[in-house]
């Protein structure tokens, strides 16, 4: 029972907890870290169909950044990302606030708003492709009602196609965000509401000044979920527009996939993936620093 026993003891303390953490440790180290390093390393090679360690320096990156399709993809993703974040969260919040007004049929409304989340992006893309199709979708319906000059064909207009995707993306995702935020709203102490009412602060102001700051954790969770979805945007585009018309709705994930597998240029695909990961890191590191580095847990 001397202190010399300690190191061994420490190693095997809570051994079950350590065993239980193995899947997570392996996943993070092997898959996420390992896979990322692997991808980065091979992005400096000229691997074609199969990964080969023949290094070519920054060639793949030079080519990537001079490729107009890649540049369009980045631009599109930025556009989609910004609008998607703004709209999913603001519409989601608006709906959550409305749902929080002791309304009747709350269950029905919630089900209606949430069900699209159960459907895959492939399905979402197909349905909206159809509804937005000018020859039998909204445009033709409005025209058949007599408004002959009505034009609404976002999927065929390169300048509008990203908004067409946005309509579908919002349809699929806002319900879930609404649920998250509704949950957040209901987690707020009733006394806060009483206090603001006593202070005579108008309701809208209470939301802006008191409630939203108090919901910071929910907003962060929501942000993580929504942003992770945006970066991965792929299925929806493939199903709804295939990146068209032209290259007008290309997104980075499609570029990665196409060059890795269709063009059989793994190096180029990996370079593009690396850039995507890098941009994720640039966004996430400051956040992670604030979230985990700044304050102590426990």
């Amino acid at each position, binding site marked *: *029972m*001397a*202190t010399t*026993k*300690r190191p061994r*003891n*420490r190693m095997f*303390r809570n051994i079950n907890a350590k065993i239980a953490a193995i899947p997570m440790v392996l996943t993070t180290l092997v898959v996420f870290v390992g896979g990322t390093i692997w991808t980065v390393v091979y992005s400096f090679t000229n691997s074609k169909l199969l990964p080969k360690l023949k290094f070519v320096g920054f060639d793949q990156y030079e080519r990537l950044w001079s490729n107009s399709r890649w540049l369009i993809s980045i631009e599109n993703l930025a556009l989609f990302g910004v609008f998607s974040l703004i709209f999913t969260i603001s519409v989601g919040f608006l709906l959550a606030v409305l749902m929080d007004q002791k309304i009747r049929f709350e269950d029905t409304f919630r089900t209606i708003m949430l069900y699209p989340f159960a459907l895959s992006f492939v399905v979402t893309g197909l349905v909206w492709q159809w509804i937005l199709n000018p020859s039998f979708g909204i445009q033709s319906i409005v025209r058949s009602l007599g408004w002959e000059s009505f034009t609404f064909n976002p999927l065929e207009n390169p300048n509008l196609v990203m908004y067409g995707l946005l309509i579908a993306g919002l349809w699929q995702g806002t319900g879930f965000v609404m649920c998250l935020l509704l949950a957040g709203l209901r987690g707020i102490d009733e006394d806060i509401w009483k206090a603001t009412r006593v202070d005579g602060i108008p309701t809208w102001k209470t939301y802006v000044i008191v409630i939203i700051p108090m919901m910071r954790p929910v907003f962060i969770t929501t942000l993580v979920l929504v942003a992770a979805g945006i970066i991965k945007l792929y299925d929806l585009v493939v199903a709804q527009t295939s990146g068209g018309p032209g290259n007008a709705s290309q997104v980075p994930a499609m570029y990665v996939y196409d060059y890795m597998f269709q063009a059989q240029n793994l190096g180029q695909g990996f370079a593009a993936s690396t850039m995507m990961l890098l941009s994720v890191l640039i966004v996430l590191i400051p956040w992670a620093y604030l979230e985990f580095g700044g304050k*102590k847990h426990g």
Partner: protein
Amino acid sequence: MSYSIQVKDLKLDFGAVSVLKTLNIDVAEGEFIVLLGPSGCGKSTLLNCLAGLLDITDGEIWIKGKNVTWAEPSERGIGMVFQSYALYPQMTVRGNLSFGLKNARMPKEEIDKRVARAAEILQIEPLLDRKPAALSGGQRQRVAIGRALVRDVDVFLFDEPLSNLDAKLRSELRVEIKRLHSRLNNTMVYVTHDQIEALTLADRIAVMRGGIIQQLAAPQEIYNRPANLFVAGFIGSPSMNFLHGATVDNGRAFQFGETKIDLSGYDGGAVLDRPRAILGLRPEHLLIQTEAEPGRTLPAVVEIDEPMGADSLVWLVAGGTQMSVRVPVERRLAPGTRVHLKVDISKASIFDTESEKRV
């Protein structure tokens, strides 16, 4: 002398932050120790270390003559009661009481016997088949104590067990805990930030701040002879009055502004001449009178008086320092009245301003 708990050079770091700094405590068998201090002082952390819920960085913990530094909480022979009761919500009271015994694979008859005994001691027999959600706060805390009781251990650890209760229940349960202690006569370590609890329950109090034990002594000792300025200020309500001045005349007098107070009869070490010193006077050790006594009184002006039922507090200003004095409730003083405060120097404390230590 056999110790129930010995803490030897215990250190605990969270990363670069040192939370507990080389603590040493010996607890005698059957002793009731209260860890007292403001929040963040490390008192709960120390208790968690004793329980084995936190791995310490250095040092040793011995319980009942065994080195348990690296033992599992359940192997240390302790029972623990938490502030939020920590009752398992999905289990009945009986389930809560017997959970630990079942984990120890105790025979069923023995479990039943122990549960019955604990329920009897705590008078919770009618509640045994209820879920915690159906209990009141006081009942919940009784069950929580019962959970420690059934373990039949020699050491009880209490982590602010009464802070979630209202004032009435708190004093009731306080008495109950005291009764329990005198009945079972086991060792108790009790964490609180409430000095009344500390003063009423403890055999000895350990006052902590910043991960360091400031003073470990019997309640009266702590009250009357606080080891330093922090302990003096922390214990007692309202707080001790502090007069900033100097000791003069080879330590025979305390100079406070124009007034000089004679220090003969001071209960402490050599006072010496100190250019900066603090005279600490508890509100109940001052007497309000109308005439001055040179070297025994200091002049003051009444600001306000607060009748508190049993007695009354008078707030005054003396030499620019606000002071409070406890007086019988019948004694009313109008604001602005000029009075003199008589000092009982045998109960006063003098602190060195630099070291903050009592002289």
